[in-house]
């Protein structure tokens, strides 16, 4: 759900249900790292509600598009993390295997 004004698209508050610090803090990081963002922060209005509010103010672009781009960046980073991790595990297994072979011979 998005709270913004119709006349000024540069600033919006996004209210996300069923999310917590896990996504909000990562999104805040990605948003703050975007040069188009003037201000970004998040809050959890009440700990019993499964809801976070993310505030985005930009220097000119629509806040919604900037927020979407930030999430897209996060996804690309996650995919890269997964790929790198999988490769590191395979490499580690191979090197362990080589070590065992050397001990045997």
């Amino acid at each position: 759900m998005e709270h913004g004004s119709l006349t000024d698209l540069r600033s919006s508050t996004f209210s996300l249900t069923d999310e917590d610090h896990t996504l909000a803090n990562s999104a805040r990081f990605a948003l703050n790292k975007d040069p188009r963002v003037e201000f970004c922060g998040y809050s959890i209005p009440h700990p019993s509600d499964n809801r976070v509010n993310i505030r985005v103010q930009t220097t000119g672009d629509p806040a919604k598009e900037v927020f979407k781009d930030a999430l897209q960046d996060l996804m690309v980073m996650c995919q890269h993390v997964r790929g790198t991790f999988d490769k590191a595990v395979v490499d580690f297994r191979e090197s362990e295997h080589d070590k065992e072979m050397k001990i045997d011979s």
Partner: protein
Amino acid sequence: MPRLSALDMPDVPKAQLPPHLEQQRTRVSCKSDAPLHTEGIQYSGAYASMGVDNSLRLDSFSKNFRVEVVRLTEDEIEFDMIGIDASLANAFRRILIAELPTMAIEKVLIANNTSVVQDEVLAQRLGLIPIEADPRLFEYVSENDTAHEKNTIVFKLDVRCKKDDGRIKAKSSELKWLPGGSELQMASTNSNPSTNPNAKPKTYTSFNCRQDSLPEFSHKPLRPKYGDITIAVLGAGQAIDLEVHAVKGVGRTHAKWSPVATAWYRMLPEVVLTQEVEDGKAEELVSKCPVNVFDIEDIGEGRKKAVVARPRACTLCRECIREKHWEECVDLRRVRDHFIFTIESTGALPPEVLFTEAVKILEQKCERIIAELS
């Protein structure tokens, strides 16, 4: 005179921060009284006045991000994750603990329990037993949903201690898998055996087929991961007869569904000797450290100096800088974007699979929000 931007002045370093700011950006300093510069600088324009771009560039992230596996066993992994922000590392940790699903015992149908362990305590103990079942093969039980072969695993526990057995222990290995579903008959009020004598008696589950006829379980029976967990101790003549139903859930609801014993990270410690520490002082420094971070090196002519040999072992107890004047020689820091990540699996999935699944969940979260906004 030609116009000159302040950024083009010869004394302004290009794309490079002065060393003290670079250290603030990449390190957390640990002083004897308190840590310094704990919060990372996220704002993209933080160093704009110095011509340094602090924004996120995906290509440079991809280039600099590294993972190095340190230890990998059946149920534990330790790896270094280098070049990532704490917010993402923490997101992965939080997802591992609270949002990755596993199968755990949720319902306990007690037919008989004459042991000294009360029913509710017994049920609580049973819930915490890790089940060796891949949660990806199961569905969540939604409200008003019946228990069927795709969302429920049924086990039976029937132990009794004979009069002359003394005392016996009921172990988790005695939980027997019932691939055909529940064997307990429901006490129905309106059933009249005379109307339909051939009807199958109604049980607490409605399986359409036997679970062991499904290809994913036929080669590998479902069972508790560890067979040596004591469920209860039975005295002579006591007995437990019950049936348990395991369902899929997440750690946020109850810790029994958490797939990790624990998952944590620490930032890489960095120990720097800012002055030469020699002879007697070197000996003193080595003996100060409880985890042997420092070693002594001979520098000839019978002189010795202290060197940092094992910075990774440092627990940042700050014992070495506690006394006066030591802070001038030893600088304790932590590398802000280097995480030593450890995952201890409870056994449902191997630890390396858990991590990739956690990353996938964060991706799904982003995907969901993007879809909702479009």
